[in-house]
């Protein structure tokens, strides 16, 4: 019924079938079948209604999502074609840029400098024209990419084909700049909300590298165990710390600064736990947020971000002296809603599974390599850069892929529980949009189309990740 019958044939050894079968049957039944059904549904007008006959509508859902329509179709055709070609050129330029860096094409460094200039000009024009700060971010990224390539040891200054990607970027971006007005004067997207939410989804992915770096940093921190000592000594230290903690709590309560006393008391307690149980205690503490993911954490953070009574704003106002009313309104503010979510997401994820994976990988780094490097007189930084990081590459690669797949599908719970997708659609991601389409508008066909477009995006992102990851690994 689903057409994907991978029933093993004669040349597949029996043991393979045996081992694979339990999992595979479940896979076919609970994973493959619904997936195929949803693919079919994306091409129909499926709604819940038993009264509406199921019709095949071809690409209509996809057109509704991604397409444009124009009031004056005849003349505008050229504009549309040129716009789309420029977008394709832009994407090609970006991919080739990274490729040229990895493959060390000639002239790649000149290309890097060109990218720098391009990035700077984007930033300046963005500020001058007060456009949406997404452009500023894009400019900054280009600038950094340009600097990164220019100062790296790879590639050469000699002119060569390495310049081509940057030229592509310059051409496409300038063309888009000029085409922008004619395009949007004549065309309106069929579903403007889709693009807005696409932007949101990509924006929210910005926190991913920060999270990965953070997990790495934490893993590095916790990797070197604290000096061990005898059991009795540890017990004594723990008791001392616990005692100090209790004392500060009591003092705090007594003097009316109960909260401060409690915080200091807990600090003593954490110190004591560390001395007694070594780093295991900290690994548990850092993993805490991952345990309680869910409604409780959302409520918690909603209260923390409260612009009037939340400790974040109260603390900021105290530290910087600005009045509370002038501080950003975090989740209710159009500009700050997404950064707030990114911060919260990082907090939750930073001590989680990624950190543990890194810890394990770190302890796999062969000690003899490090010793050999020390004998050669390498500094700490060099040891880190040339030994540790490459050894961690496979783990980083795995984490990157899973983060991309998960991140592009995320945002649903936060939007549903914390922000309702607001303010004014600022925190709605494609996942949440899909969810609304399916369960509010009951338009399942449309929702399936969104899901498959998301699949295409995730697939491309993962494929790129995979490709570049393999390149990085090779070196």
């Amino acid at each position: 019924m689903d057409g994907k019958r991978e029933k093993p044939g004669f040349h597949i050894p029996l043991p393979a079938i045996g081992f694979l079968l339990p999992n595979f049957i479940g896979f076919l039944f609970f994973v493959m079948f619904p997936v195929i059904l949803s693919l079919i549904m994306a091409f129909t007008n499926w709604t819940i209604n038993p009264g509406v006959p199921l019709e095949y509508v071809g690409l209509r859902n996809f057109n509704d999502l991604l397409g444009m329509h124009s009031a004056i179709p005849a003349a505008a055709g050229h504009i549309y074609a040129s716009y789309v070609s420029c977008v394709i050129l832009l994407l090609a330029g970006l991919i080739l840029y990274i490729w040229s860096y990895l493959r060390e094409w000639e002239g790649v460094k000149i290309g890097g400098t060109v990218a720098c200039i391009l990035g700077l000009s984007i930033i300046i024009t963005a500020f001058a024209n007060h456009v949406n700060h997404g452009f500023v971010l894009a400019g900054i990224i280009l600038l950094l990419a340009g600097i990164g390539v220019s100062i790296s040891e790879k590639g050469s200054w000699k002119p060569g084909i390495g310049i081509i990607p940057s030229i592509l970027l310059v051409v496409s971006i300038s063309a888009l700049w000029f085409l922008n007005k004619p395009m949007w004067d004549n065309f309106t997207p069929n579903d403007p909300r889709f693009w807005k939410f696409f932007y949101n989804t990509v924006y929210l992915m910005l926190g991913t590298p920060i999270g990965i770096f953070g997990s790495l940093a934490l893993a590095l921190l916790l990797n070197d165990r604290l000096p061990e000592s005898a059991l009795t000594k540890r017990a004594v230290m723990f008791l001392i710390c616990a005692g100090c903690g209790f004392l500060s709590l009591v003092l705090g309560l007594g003097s009316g600064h109960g909260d401060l006393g409690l915080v200091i008391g807990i600090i003593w307690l954490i110190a004591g736990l560390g001395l007694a149980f070594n780093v295991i205690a900290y690994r548990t503490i850092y993993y805490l947020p991952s345990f309680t993911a869910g409604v409780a954490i959302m409520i918690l953070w909603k209260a923390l971000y409260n612009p009037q009574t939340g400790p974040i704003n109260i603390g900021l106002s105290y530290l910087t002296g600005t009045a509370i009313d002038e501080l950003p309104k975090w989740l209710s503010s159009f500009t700050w809603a997404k950064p707030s979510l990114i911060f919260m997401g990082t907090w939750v994820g930073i001590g989680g599974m990624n950190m543990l994976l890194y810890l394990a990988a770190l302890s796999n780094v062969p000690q003899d390599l490090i010793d050999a490097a020390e004998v050669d007189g390498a500094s700490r930084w060099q040891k880190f850069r040339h030994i540790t990081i490459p050894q961690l590459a496979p783990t980083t690669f795995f984490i990157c892929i899973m983060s991309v797949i998960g991140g592009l599908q995320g945002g649903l719970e936060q939007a549903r529980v914390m922000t309702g997708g607001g303010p004014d659609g600022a925190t709605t991601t494609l996942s949440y949009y899909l969810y609304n389409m399916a369960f509010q508008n009951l338009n399942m066909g449309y929702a399936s189309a969104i899901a498959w477009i998301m699949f295409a995006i995730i697939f491309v992102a993962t494929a790129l990740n995979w490709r570049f990851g393999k390149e990085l690994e090779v070196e």
Partner: protein
Amino acid sequence: MKKLFIISGFLLLVVYAFALMSFKKPDTGKIVLRWATDPNPARKVQTKLFGELNPGLEVTVESGAMEKLLVQCATGTGPDIIDIYGATQMDCYAKAGLLLDLTPYASKMGFDPSKTYPSLKEDLCVDGKQYRFPCNTGGNCVIYNKKIFDDHGVEYPKPDWTIEDFIKAGKKFNEPGKSGQTHIPLASFYPYWVFIDMYYSLGGRYYTDDGLKSKLDSPEAIKALQTYHDMMHVYKIIPSPEVVAGMSSQGGWGSGPIVWFSTGKAAMIMIGRWYLNILVNYPDMAQNIASVGLPRFEGHPPSGLLGCRGPGINAQSKHKEQAMKFLSYLASVDYGTLIVRDGDSLPPNPTLAQNGEMLVNKTVSDPAFHQPFVDAMKTARPIDNSPFINALEVQRWIDERLARVENNPGINIEILMKDLATEINNKIKRNIDRSKALQEKYKSVTGKDWKPEK
């Protein structure tokens, strides 16, 4: 390792068997009707009474979460009785084919629209067919805090007051009163209602009579939204979203502002009689409050949104007949008395709420408090829906525009509303274009054939 797996597998099976055995529910021999509603403890009392009046039937309450409902109904396993919170939701579900058309059975079993308020008829029907019957109903009034009014030296509102009076009074609360404090003039917890109440007072409707065009770009709509905008950004009577976020948001559906009013931080609130349910948690508040009808625009009669919460019956229910007995129960005096007693807005049966005295309950014993709610029923009107578009989708678009007004002071309301109306009209055209059934409906409404435009 292998041993570990075998042993743990065995243990799991044992636990599983044990768990299954402990589940044997005694078969009461009654037919069980499932009612999807919210987890309000009052439901248990209502279903218990139903069980007593209808031996052999039992109603169990379960969560009415929309996603769950839809997924279950899509596969034919939905609950028998589905609570619907407004005409918008009813429109959506009816058009999705989830609800049973009650029209053939209604008068026989005693829950046709004549058993409740006549003005409610449109709220219970989609396209002339009845799909639900109210559990409770009501329109909004303004409840105000007498102590705060005294504190700022503001006169109590008169029953016939206008929007201008309302604004004048509201502005005073932003200046410190005798106690030195300012108060929030209006605790608006659902901005949509404030806008609609005003729009209705101006005589507005959502669609033209044939349901083909949206009337949300009419001058009345623009005026209503402009007034809302001014109340929020110019006169500062309605707190803007930032102020709302800045205060405690404790509570479920929009009840942050409800809590402000209940704890004496806000002077007024526009709400239905179901506020009494919340008032039980704040016993000291009861003696401070009084109520008055909604303010009206000068030169127009007062009006407001009429709504009800009412269950419909799942089109695929296996116990349709029995489930309909539940609807008859709702029309009865027994059930209505429970609603009056618990203060859960007004009962569907109008004979139980003819004046303030009949509505007195233990939370607020002053009949004058309940009277405006009775009066509101005479002037409130329900939402009008169009057969050509999904009401829930339109609702989302309206909410979006309202959010934009709230977040952008000085926004051009006329352009906003024209854009909204265009979006709705385009969607209507697209819907008709893609559905033969709607094209026939178009023909029956206008007498002309549908001509798709390019």
